[in-house]
């Protein structure tokens, strides 16, 4: 054992000293120039889109249109949030759109034919989603059929199922107040502000506690001013949004008042927080990334890969169910097209535009929300432009490309510098 010499183990350069404002800003700029931009390109794309539409149609920047945006984009965004989980593990779910249709039809049938109370019906819809997810996930993970084929088959079968559920094509009207409220009613203004305060307070609390605990353990922690800046930005943007949504937007304010945050907004926010915590702060989330990044490495690390895959499909289909419920609420009806046409493509598109990789291992739920916003703004803006069908398709395609192009060019620098 002559060769084994004692060499002093050098400690890793751990930046335990609190960084100055200047250093942090410089480092951030360097990171951005180097390509670690996070949500920046998506935000950039959004800003460009909004500017274009606002110039073309001044009504784009009105309180009512701002409120419309949320309800219009909600269903696609919710489905996209679920799809992120399936995309994260490198699979695809083509059936998410029609799965939302099936769940919507279940909601409609239990609500109207069976006449059950709304909460039972929603539960039934979500349970349907879970069952769908278990079946799809099992076929992919255990039987080993490629997810594209499984979900293509499901895509077909679910169309049939929706038809069966809605009696071969009838259009079921939903008149239950609670269900209709989700996408069509608003929170009272005071509740909007209360929720706002609670959210900002919780965010600030979590950030502070985290920093304190890390400082105590002598690990690199964010300095107080940085946390302050973050909380401030959030408070400002969210505050502006709540204020805008609390403006009167009724056409006849004397006749009827229309103010407040649409009910879907807190629902989306709650799910966004829930899934973000699951992905970033639980071992299940960690395992999802691992399976998507390197399935073999995950398996060797003892992760139950099959179970993780099934869970991803379950989450995807349940979110599709929730998306279906919101879609039903918004349309106040269910027909065989619910969840069909472009819903799926828009949802996957939303996730991908936000920065989720189709090859797995990369993506955040926030991405889906950002991408969903891009898709919603495009749809919303195009609706205002009032083009004919053909021009509308052409322009929508080009605008989508534009938004993605901004993103791609921004990221291109990064990979050119050797950072991938």
């Amino acid at each position, binding site marked *: 054992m002559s060769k084994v010499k004692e060499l002093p183990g050098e400690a890793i350069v751990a930046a335990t000293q609190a960084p100055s404002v200047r250093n942090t800003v410089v480092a951030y700029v360097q990171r951005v120039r180097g390509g670690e931009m996070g949500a920046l390109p998506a935000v950039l794309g959004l800003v460009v889109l909004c500017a274009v539409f606002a110039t073309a149609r001044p009504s784009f920047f009105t309180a009512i249109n701002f409120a419309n945006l949320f309800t219009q984009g909600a269903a696609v965004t919710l489905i996209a949030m679920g799809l992120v989980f399936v995309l994260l593990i490198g699979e695809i779910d083509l059936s998410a759109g029609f799965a939302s249709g099936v769940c919507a039809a279940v909601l409609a049938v239990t609500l109207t034919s069976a006449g059950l109370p709304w909460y039972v019906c929603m539960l039934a819809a979500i349970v349907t989603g879970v069952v769908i997810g278990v079946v799809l996930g099992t076929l992919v993970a255990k039987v080993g059929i490629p997810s594209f084929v499984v979900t293509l088959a499901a895509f077909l079968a679910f169309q049939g199922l929706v038809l*069966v559920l809605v009696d071969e094509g009838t259009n079921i009207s939903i008149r239950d107040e609670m269900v209709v409220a989700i996408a069509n009613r608003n929170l009272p203004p005071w509740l909007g502000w209360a929720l706002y305060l609670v959210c900002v307070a919780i965010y600030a609390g979590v950030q502070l506690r985290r920093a304190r605990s890390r400082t105590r353990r002598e690990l690199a922690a964010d300095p107080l001013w940085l946390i302050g800046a973050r909380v401030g930005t959030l408070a400002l943007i969210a505050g502006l949004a709540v204020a805008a949504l609390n403006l009167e937007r009724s056409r006849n304010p004397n006749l009827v008042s229309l103010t407040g945050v649409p009910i879907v907004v807190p629902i989306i926010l709650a799910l966004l927080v829930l899934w973000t915590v699951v992905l970033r702060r639980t071992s299940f989330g960690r395992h999802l990334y691992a399976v998507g990044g390197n399935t073999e490495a995950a398996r060797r690390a003892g992760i139950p890969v099959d179970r993780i895959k099934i869970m991803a499909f379950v989450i995807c289909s349940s979110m599709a169910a929730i998306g279906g419920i919101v879609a039903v609420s918004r349309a106040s009806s269910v027909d065989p*097209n619910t969840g069909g046409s472009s819903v799926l493509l828009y949802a996957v598109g939303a996730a991908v535009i936000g920065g989720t990789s189709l090859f797995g291992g990369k993506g955040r739920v926030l991405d889906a929300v950002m991408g969903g916003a891009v898709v919603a703004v495009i749809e919303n803006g195009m609706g205002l432009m009032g083009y004919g069908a053909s021009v509308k398709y052409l322009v929508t395609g080009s605008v989508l490309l534009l938004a993605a192009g901004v993103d791609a060019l921004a990221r291109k620098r990064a990979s050119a510098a050797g950072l991938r």
Partner: protein
Amino acid sequence: GGESGQTTTSTSSAAPSAPAGKIGVILPDSKSSDRWETADRKYLQEAFEAAGVEYDIQNAQNDKTQFQTIADQMITNGATVLMIVNLDSGTGKTVIDKARSQGVATIDYDRLTLGGGAEYYVSFDNTKVGQLQGEGLVKCLTDKNADKPIVAYLNGSPTDNNATLFKNGYDGVLKPKFDAGEYVKGPEQSVPDWDNTQAGTIFEQMLTQEPDIAGVLTANDGLGNAAITVLKKNNLNGKIPVTGQDATVQGLQNILAGDQCMTVYKAIKKEADAAAKLAVALAKGEKPAATSSVKDPETGQDVPAELMEPQAIYADNVKDVVADGYVTKEELCTGDFAEKCTEAGIQ
């Protein structure tokens, strides 16, 4: 409806002595309207059963390729009469030509195949449907004493030829009014795939862009309901007339509630019965005469035809649809609507 989930190929034991052939029916889709699967299929089935002929009814799901494949397969399976609702004239003509070359007789059901030269044509007049919608909207606007109302169009699917025919119909009524300055032409958009969800977004944006819309010409009840949902959100329902088509339960309920101005009822049973009668006769080798004829604009030839009249439905004649058995009272008069049904005189 709803009994169409089964295999519909069957033979009646009580077949009459004549060696009747087999009838194949291709329906177009199940999503643009529920009539095909819930009404047409049912009525045709009943008629064929009654006549005791073999038949096979299939739906092409709005897919031209499938449409042709089904036609091929029906001929393979031995159909001697083919009754088609074409998805477009091109594929329709290919199918009719192929059928003719195999000695199979053809009937155009509901839609005329231009240049096809089928033996018979049985239909409602789709332009007439649009015309009724246009007239209905004018009536409702007049009832509301609207002054220079802004009228928005929510057309059917841009890829559906029927949507074009409907539009020709209502344009025929409304365009003169726009030209005369009585009405103002508002935003107009087509709804891809007749998708109600997209229709909601499209209409919401129309309303944002043009808040003073006073009337909406929507091409069917589903699109109408999408518009009504948006109007409800803005508490404008009932104040702005909306049109429809198909006399669906949803549409009729919206009419009873006062949210929808009118719908167009097409007595599908009559149409189906007429077509079935012709088909059965053809299958038995007869060649009955038709009551009228239609000129094929492409070939200039007359096609023997049976044409049905569509009917406009307003709140006061909803009961006609129920009386006809197209919609049952149980379906229509649920919950809150029981009272309204009584008001409307529905027994």
